[in-house]
């Protein structure tokens, strides 16, 4: 097998390795970000900030309660602080707001019911994309083998060679000027 025949296979294998490396890098980055989020015991202000960052400001567009300058968001932050002081856990506080506003008050939709699709769909799409990529790569690898390669062609038989030589000679006789 010549270098030209091997090249597509090598290129395809390299693509697979690159895809796997990119996925590994993404996974490591996500893990590092997730680990960094967990520190020691946060202060009350930090806890308020954390809970507020997980809640949508009800009177704003695409702003969390932590980021919003709206008076209602400020009052929500005050209420979170009061509830923490009263001994409520972050989960209980979140549940209180969900009871009044529904799941839409959460910045990240819950992993149940129809909202679970937000978490499941990307996985399905990534899996489908991987299957598609693997199928494509396998086709690239197979294609050069299916096509006849010039270097690997069977040598001409003696009779074929004679027939070609005869045809060339006849052509030369018919067109003597050329």
């Amino acid at each position: 097998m010549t270098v030209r025949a091997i090249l597509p296979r090598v290129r395809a294998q390299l693509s697979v390795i690159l895809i796997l490396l990119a996925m590994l890098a993404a996974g490591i980055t996500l893990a590092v970000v997730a680990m960094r989020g967990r520190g020691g015991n946060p202060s009350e202000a930090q806890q308020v900030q954390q809970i507020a960052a997980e809640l949508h400001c009800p009177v704003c567009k695409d702003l969390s309660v932590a980021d919003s300058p709206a008076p209602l968001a400020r009052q929500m932050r005050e209420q979170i602080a009061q509830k923490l002081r009263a001994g409520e856990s972050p989960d209980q506080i979140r549940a209180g707001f969900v009871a009044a506003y529904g799941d839409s008050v959460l910045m990240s939709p819950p992993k149940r019911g129809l909202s679970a699709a937000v978490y499941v769909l990307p996985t399905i799409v990534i899996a489908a994309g991987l299957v598609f990529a693997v199928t494509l790569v396998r086709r690239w690898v197979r294609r050069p083998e299916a096509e006849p390669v010039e270097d690997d062609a069977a040598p001409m038989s003696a009779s074929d060679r004679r027939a070609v030589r005869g045809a060339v000679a006849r052509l030369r006789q018919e067109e003597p000027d050329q």
Partner: protein
Amino acid sequence: MSYVTRRRALLLGVVVVVVSAVAVLLSVGLRRDPSAAPSPLIGRIAPDFTLSQLDGKPFTLSTLRGQVVVVNFWASWCTECHTEQPALSQTWQRFQDSGVVVVGVNFQDTTDDAIDYVRKAGVSYPVVEDSDSRTALAYGLRGIPETFVIDRTGRIAARIIGPVDATKLTNQINSMLSAGEQ
């Protein structure tokens, strides 16, 4: 059936399913009344509150159990609240002797501005001040005006976003009153 034909049929099937799903979602969504907003509180006991009225007297919602209560969140700076005010006053005048109470909850306003507006607009139903928005947050308020209709058992029957429509509110109250008589 050849492989290519089967693939085309499958693709067509997927397109038909997706388009049908979008069409169904749109037809359901477009038929909904945008002012009748869903709320997780509908069917649940209305969050109780004790707030000061504009004259300083306390007002507790749960003392009205057995009556139909219309809780309207408003502010003097809110122009849409001015638009709906006649409908609320009309409802109060029409139904106050039939076991219906209208309560105005003043939201993010100053006491002076609220008193001034109430006097000028001739509001005669009770108006309370929610100075720290605690009640607004308990009702899942997303803006004003917003109105909640509470039945005789103390459960929230309806949530109206935006200015109330006098006819719709009257129909709602009539159906609740007639349901209570049965």
